[in-house]
């Protein structure tokens, strides 16, 4: 299980970095999303993946006796997912507006000469 997740994690990071380095705005967006998901899997991995070991201490002991499923990484991922959901929603709207104004998908064309405002 861990090995599979590590492979997926590496793939997501590689694909994310590759897409961010492209010049297209849509690919930039996808790259950011893939990187975010890769990070979530990384956090998940670092909290010890075990099956059937809830983080509950039985009545005879005061501390954990065995490896247990750590709930904190899941809480962290949940927070990170919600945040990246909001960021992605904003990014989609922003890129759509930019596309409507600039009429191109190429990031290199986002250099309108200076205009000024207060």
């Amino acid at each position, binding site marked *: 299980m861990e090995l599979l997740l590590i492979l997926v994690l590496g793939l997501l990071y590689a694909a994310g970095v590759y897409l*961010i380095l492209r010049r297209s*705005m849509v690919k*930039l967006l996808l790259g*950011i999303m893939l*990187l*975010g998901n890769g*990070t979530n899997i*990384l*956090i998940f*991995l*670092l*909290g010890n993946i075990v099956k059937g070991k809830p983080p509950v201490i039985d009545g005879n002991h005061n501390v954990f006796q065995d490896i247990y499923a750590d709930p*904190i*990484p899941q809480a*962290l991922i949940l*927070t*990170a997912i919600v*945040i990246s959901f*909001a*960021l992605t929603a*904003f*990014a989609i709207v*922003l*890129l759509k*507006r*930019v596309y409507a*104004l*600039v009429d191109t998908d190429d*990031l290199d064309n*986002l*250099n*309108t000469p*200076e*205009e*000024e*405002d*207060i």
Partner: protein
Amino acid sequence: MIDNHILAPVFIHLFTAIIQLIAWRKTVSQRFLSVGGTFIGLLIAIRLFAKVYSEGSLHMNASNWEAPFGIVFVADMLSSTMVLLTSIAGFAVSIFSSVGLSRQRMLYGYFPIFHFLLMGLNGAFLTGDIFNLYVWFEVIIISSFVLMTLGGRKAQLEGAVKYMAMNILASTFFLTGIGILYGITGSLNIADISIKIKAFDNKTLVDITSIFFILGFGIKSAVFPLYYWLPSSYHTPPSAVAATFGGLLTKVGIYAILRVFSSIFIPDDFTKTLFMTIAVLTILTGAFGALIKTNIRRLFSYLIVCHIGFMLGGIAMFTKIALMGTVFYLIHDIMVKTNMFLIAGFIRMVRGTMDMHKLGGLYKHYPLISLLIALVLFSLVGIPPLSGFWPKIYLFQDAFVNHQYFFIGALIVGSLVTLYVIAKMWAEVFWKDVPEEVELEDKFKELPLFKKLLLVVPILFLTFVTLYIGFNAENIITVVDRISNELLDTSPYIRTVLGDKAFDQ
């Protein structure tokens, strides 16, 4: 010492923003609420600072979960100083934006978002939990995205794409770093991590983790290879927004570097060399970029990058004197940079442009205000005894002691270029006559006296603070001295958060 009031700087802005959301599209009441809210926020910040100054660090456990299990909020000298500076800058910007911003932007929620931004800043300064720091960073960047795009002009949106992409990337790196840090220490509390990481054997892994933090905070604070988004986006939003960004947002990155690298990753030779290289290159690129710009705000953007290098160089040496210089420069920089962008907004109001070639004659038409602006510019350049001068003494002195001759060279080049571009700007904008082909459109003259005052008073207020920093440097040095002691020896911080039991093992 436990004190629940340390969350007041966060809550005051939260409540102000919520009340303003109820008063949606009522711009007059939003303006009053904003100025009132930031004023109360300033009073709260002064109280917090005074309390921390006299009684030492305060802390507060969220929901009474004891650290390291719950989220903890800590106000030590560094945090409370940063909260105080944020409140001062926020108060000034809030007054300025009540006149200096178009009505359209206010209708679509400028003020609530501005308060959410201030809330995020105060939260980031006060938290003692590394994941919570990430969450506050996200609050800051989401608010700043909205502020940057509000108005929806083409240039603004184009700048916002670069700003957004780089900042989300920075957050991803930061989160990756937190993930690995949790994996190796099993804790998220900064004080707790700083104890546990000392017992961790694999120093290479710790160094690699620290690279993620350097990348994340480096993008946020716009250091050398990662600064491109700043000059291509900070000149696009309205000046009131740019003032908040230029004054505070990059400095959050520096604050985070100071906090994380003083407690968790104590700089070793590798990190020190890395920071020093980055610092020198940041100063040089920022300085050379500033040389060729003719738009005032673009020039200021490059000066932000240049001066970030000064602070980073101080962190790279990581000695008491150097850290004193860094923190002093941080205090000076927040006040001056906020003021500079407000001044850019004033110039734009008076002349309708920010291009130096089309500007001129400001000294002839507004002599008193020009003299006021001159004081700010002199402070930025660092003419003794104004505020920019004192931190540079510390940085120079310690660079000599540590034989960092590249840094000394970069400091000299950076300071000279700052002097040169400011002198050029003064000559072009204030002394030169108005170019003949340019038609003046002076919106400032048409305003009623009260609105004129609302534009000038924030600049005057920040100038007074800057002059206080310069002329009463001994008071600032007392504060800075305590902060650098706290940064070098974090055991009081750890004792505040975890109590004495942390040192028993």
